[in-house]
């Protein structure tokens, strides 16, 4: 293959590093529910996440730079999630996969966290219950575009996002009020009395 490649190429380090990082994401599969099955399907031969350089699923957070939160996270699991996120080395990104990880989904109960973005930073949200593997692949493609555009060298570009950006916690309710989770538009409270 005769190509006229020069001996020396010059480039700025940041875009070069971002280009490398974007095409070699090592996911940390935080799979807690049915989204994890779709995540496995995405990694299997039919959908083949390796086409996008993200096939190296590592179960040690020290070796990962992309956390994929796939499934609902309950209040007993959230400290574990936060600990794993803190153990991942910079630079790192997070995909919130599916309705439950993004918003709690249908599980509007006392134990289920209503979106992991309340407690850890999230870069990409994938809708669906569970999302198709194509949707997850699209989110990885979009995340690659985001990494190439914004990048990171020492995490400095994230300095601005220090405030909590998710929805605020719901206020404490009186003990005798039963809240129906169905009416999300008016968030109407139904009392048994």
């Amino acid at each position, binding site marked *: 293959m005769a190509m006229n490649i020069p001996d020396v190429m010059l480039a700025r380090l940041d875009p070069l590093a971002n280009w490398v990082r974007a095409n070699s994401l090592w996911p940390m599969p935080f799979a807690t529910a049915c989204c994890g099955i779709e995540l496995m399907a995405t990694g299997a031969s039919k959908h083949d996440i390796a086409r996008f350089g993200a096939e190296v699923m590592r179960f040690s957070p020290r070796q990962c730079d992309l956390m994929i939160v796939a499934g609902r996270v*309950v*209040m*007993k699991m*959230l*400290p574990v999630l*936060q600990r794993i*996120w*803190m153990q991942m080395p910079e630079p*790192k990104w997070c995909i919130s996969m599916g309705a439950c990880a993004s918003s709690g989904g249908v599980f*509007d*109960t*006392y*134990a*289920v*966290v*209503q979106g992991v973005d*309340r*407690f*850890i*930073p999230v870069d990409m949200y994938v809708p669906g219950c569970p999302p198709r593997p194509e949707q997850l692949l699209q989110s990885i493609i979009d995340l690659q575009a985001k990494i190439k555009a914004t990048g990171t060298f020492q*995490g400095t570009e*994230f*300095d601005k*996002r*220090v*405030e*909590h950006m998710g929805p605020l*916690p*719901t*206020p*404490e*309710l*009186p*003990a*005798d*009020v*039963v*809240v*129906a*989770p169905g009416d999300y538009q008016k968030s109407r409270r139904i009392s*048994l009395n």
Partner: protein
Amino acid sequence: MPFDAIVASLKAKHPNLATTEFRDNRRLVVKPDQVFDVLQALKTEHGFDMLFELTAADYLKYPNATDRFGVVYGVANTKTGERVYVKAWLNEPELTLPSVFALWKGADWLEREVYDMYGIVFAGHPDLRRILMPEAFTSYPLRKDYPLRGRGERHNFPVITRAES
């Protein structure tokens, strides 16, 4: 042994034993202080060697209910396949039942679960602590006066931002 014969045999020792019926499900209704004796008699005298169910229900605001909590024991005779349900009613503030761990080791986690979800204390349990909810949890979530969305426990965590992670 048919259910009526078992009831008659138990009534010799516990004359105030009652039974209730819903469709084809017949249960023994016992006082909290009789629970252990009745279950022990079922195990030793009638061969009900397996505790397959131990759960509770909160009857707060339930139509025509007179008691707050109903604790249900399901025991089976593995030789004949017979099953008997025993039910005990409890009211606040006396939410204590004798533990049946001495009869069936399988009662260990079942009693811990009922304690975790309803706050019913099983006296004599070797290790009565929460089994599902975190240790720091203060409420009993399956009680009917506990709000469906909780009291903010699910959002009582530190927020990790980009700058600090």
